[in-house]
């Protein structure tokens, strides 16, 4: 009698679970219709959703496999397998919900975030979506960093040429040499150090551009569908979760963070003006006999190189706006990827990706 009672209770629980699954499945089918209205990531246009077809395919294949196995469990009367399959079906539905959430979030980011940031920062951002706006921002930073390096290069070459000048004279077997311009070499070390830093900044902007370009092309067409498919199976659930988190993190969060950090760096206040180009030094006369004149030229040029506005604006652009923000962007994105992966059932170590910074 007690056993019969237990069986009845178990059957009741099983039926309840099936009802929940049916409801979840129907809800998923209902909201999946919104996919057709969603914009196609990558192009930004309302399309026939070729990418989203693969979202559906990634979920349909595991559902078919589970359905066949479920029928098998009845055919061979294996109730234990049925319980496992019900759990697996729930995971597939959860994966479907994750897919819909990703698309919805992406649509919100594309349609609203750019407007919000434009309003908050007072800057005009391109209307074609967060990805395009972020890429436009990075192109601006890259051009700025390239300009700074070119300027450093020009100044360094001229400085090196002038500082190398020296006079040699030999009279009656006695040689004299005068290195009147060599003090200018003192500025070259600092210039090289500054150029090094700018090189790193330029590398960072290139890296960010490449990663965004990669995400724009393949996050929603290859990485996330593959992740959704893998997430539907128990053994590959963690790998699938990792791919979904990485794809979504770099497609949606990364551009949003790039835009947010760059736009909100100053709020509505005006950012510092672009750093003026470093001045080229004049011609150094190696035969100048007056030490006072040489000293005066040296200190004058040093004054021009180390003007407060020059140093401040350069440091702002290279150190803060490019270097610091690129590291910050990556840290925030990686933190999101880790948390999101954990949320969808994958515990991954993303520290290896941080090496790029």
């Amino acid at each position, binding site marked *: 009698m007690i056993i019969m009672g237990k069986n009845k209770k178990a059957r009741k629980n099983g039926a309840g679970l099936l009802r929940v699954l049916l409801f979840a499945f129907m809800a998923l089918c209902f909201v999946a219709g919104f996919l057709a209205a969603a914009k196609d990531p990558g192009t930004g246009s309302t399309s026939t959703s070729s990418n989203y077809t693969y979202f559906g395919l990634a979920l349909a294949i595991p559902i078919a496999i589970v359905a066949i196995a479920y029928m098998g469990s009845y055919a061979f009367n294996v109730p234990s397998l049925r319980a496992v399959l019900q759990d697996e079906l729930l995971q597939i539905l959860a994966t479907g919900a994750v897919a819909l959430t990703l698309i919805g979030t992406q649509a919100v980011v594309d349609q609203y975030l750019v407007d919000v940031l434009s309003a908050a920062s007072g800057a005009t951002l391109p209307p074609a979506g967060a990805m395009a706006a972020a890429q436009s921002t990075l192109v601006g930073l890259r051009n700025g960093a390239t300009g700074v390096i070119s300027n450093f290069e020009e100044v360094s070459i001229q400085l*090196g040429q002038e500082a190398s000048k020296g006079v040699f004279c030999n009279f009656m077997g006695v040689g004299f040499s005068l290195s009147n311009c060599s003090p200018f070499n003192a500025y070259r070390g600092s210039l090289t150090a500054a150029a090094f830093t700018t090189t790193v900044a330029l590398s960072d902007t290139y890296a960010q551009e490449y*990663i965004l370009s990669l995400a724009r092309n393949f996050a929603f067409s290859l990485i996330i569908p593959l992740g959704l498919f893998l997430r539907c199976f128990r053994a590959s659930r963690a790998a699938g979760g990792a791919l979904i988190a990485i794809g979504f993190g770099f497609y949606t969060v990364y551009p949003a963070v790039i835009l947010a950090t760059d736009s909100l760096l100053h709020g509505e206040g005006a950012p510092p003006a672009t750093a003026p180009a470093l001045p080229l030094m004049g011609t150094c006369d190696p035969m100048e006999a007056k030490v006072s004149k040489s000293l005066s030229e040296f200190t004058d040029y040093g004054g021009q190189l180390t003007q407060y506005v020059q140093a401040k604006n350069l440091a702002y652009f290279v150190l803060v706006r490019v270097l610091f923000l690129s590291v910050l962007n990556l840290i925030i994105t990686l933190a999101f990827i880790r948390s999101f992966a954990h949320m969808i059932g994958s515990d991954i*170590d993303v520290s290896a*990706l941080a090496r790029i910074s």
Partner: protein
Amino acid sequence: MDASKNRIALFALLSLACVSPLVSAVTSFACSETEFNDTIMLCGIATLSMFLLIALTYMFGETMQSPRMLTWAKTEAVQAFASLVIASVILFALFTMCNFQVGEVQSVFGLGAMPKIYQDAPSPYDGGKDTIYNGAMRYTENLAAIALANVNSLRYDLGAYEIRTSYNTFECSGICIFSLASTSVSYFGGESMNLAITNNLLGIATVAYLSTIFQFFTLSYIYNGLFLIFLPLAIVMRSIPFMRHFGGALIAIFVALYLLYPLMLVADAYIAPGLTAHSGSVTLCERDARACAGKDVFSSGTITGITCGLATQDPCLGFNEWEIEGRGTGRASMVSLHPNTLGRAIGINVLIFIAAIFLPAINFIVIAAFGRELSRFLGEEADLSRLGQMV
């Protein structure tokens, strides 16, 4: 209760019967690896030995009327059967991987274009007819080639800067016939800054090249050593009573490295051209007369990731790296060395760094997650996250 057990046994037997023909199909295809048959044979021997041991134990158990031995034999028979199923599934996956062509990834995921390295592969592999294994190898080979071309280009730049910065002239100032009075000037002395930066870039390029080479040899090892030794060992271990968990972990490592790693590399080959799709092409100056071998890694369809600049054309005027010797005889000769500009050199360097370091880092994160989960599923948890540190 017996009827239920019989049904389960029938279901298991039918499942095995379904997958076993695939195993025989594998032996006939085998990705052109002659070792494949040996591995199958080793797996078969391991399974048969295990079943023989179980049968002997069962017979002894019956003879000596030992319920303990009988129970052990029955339990192990189920586990040996499970090992057989796992081995069959693995071989089925291998079969699929051997028959799946890289070109099919494009149609499966509805991608716009195929990577140029697969599209223009030598016949008969052109048009994406490589297997996943060949495709992964072709990608790492091409990536290594372009990474080396970048190292050569930077080495040339470094040499050019070295020669130019050490160039010094003594300019006669009129009375030099009597007093030898002259002004010494190093016109390119200021390029020591470029020299230092290029030196740094060369270090990064070398790391990227080494990472690619590491992946190339890892792949070679996976295709040979791992397959020949690891798989039979893992299956044997999975069948031995007290080593079952260890065997499960070995199988998980094998599946992660032998099945998932090549797949991830093929995925990388597909997505690598996307790196420059929206950021524009970059120019690599050819300094090794090999026409920037491997540059197609970053090209597909209409995307040309790397433009190869010849030494006879602007903006890469100059020489091959072995022609740089003896070019220090005059100022015009110095100018003709034409090292690449820093901005271009940085752009190409970062592109190769991302492909050689960043993408493999993602690969290893996914592989580690997959391997850990699968090993947990099969028995013992194996931590593969350390593999990522090799990049």
